[in-house]
């Protein structure tokens, strides 16, 4: 089941409150400002900053970027 657009539209980075981008495969949200990847598990976005993964920036904006190795 895909994430609902009405939720995606209002989400923001919990750290900087800026815009976040949903990966094309809906695996998670990327904050390019904070360089953090927030995973989506079973259609529930996890915005616990302590559990966010560093974001490498590779492929940013193409939907093909990968979280940096944990």
């Amino acid at each position, binding site marked *: 089941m895909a994430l609902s657009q009405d*939720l995606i539209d209002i989400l*923001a980075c*919990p750290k900087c409150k800026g815009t976040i981008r949903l990966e094309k495969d809906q695996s998670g949200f990327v904050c390019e400002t904070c360089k953090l990847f927030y995973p989506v598990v079973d*259609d*529930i976005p996890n*915005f616990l900053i302590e*559990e966010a993964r560093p974001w490498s920036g590779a492929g940013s904006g193409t939907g093909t970027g990968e979280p940096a190795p944990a």
Partner: protein
Amino acid sequence: MCHMTRDTVRQFGPLARDYALSESHARGRTLAMLALRVQPRATDAVLDVATGGGHTALAFAPAVRLVVAHDVSRSMVQQTLGRARDAGLSNLRGVVSPAECIPFAAECFDVVTCRTAAHHFDDLGAALREARRVLRSGGRLAWTDLAAATDPELRALQHRLEVLHDATHRGTWTPAEWRDALEGAGFREIAIEGGVDERLTELPGGTSAAEWCERSRTPPEAQAEILRLLREARQTTREALGVRDEGDDVRFCLYKLVATARA
């Protein structure tokens, strides 16, 4: 600064089902009071902070456009979404984060609710500032929580009982302290109802200490201490807390308050 309350996640993850089934959470007075005070509209987007068993989120969903069930525990959110599906509700979404660090853009909700959860928050002021930030101008806040007594001795006993019951308890506040916290977060038209003086409780007849402890998996030695403290409290304290001995159990009052305000 945002905190992740790991203890709270550990405590409440396994308890999602128990909180969903809890009578005081499912049918308590403050749930109806929240709906009455908010007067939900069909166009409203509602954020239910620290949704827990999801009772508030599920109660509001049929009356509004969108409800987001928020909690620091993924199990709680997952269970709430499952209950929404079972109830045929299609407008309920979920996110995981601490209440002090909400992952939403500014001014995107019409209503922010929170029921009987603030006493677990690391920082009530930060949580209220986040609620204020995500509310549209004129948006409604409606929160309920445990109420602290103004009498220091009674308040100390309330706190001791709560910490024994659940180690993730952080604190409770008097109606005056709630008003100050809401003002400090930038809210207006603040109203506080209930509290110890008004003896507002979720259910008539008070709370069974045994059931209260069972729901939260309170360790047996802590439960025994709770029973001892209630039984051996001085008479004025017993009267203030409505303590009633019932064989091996003790009933007493967990007082609540309801705080409403506008952004």
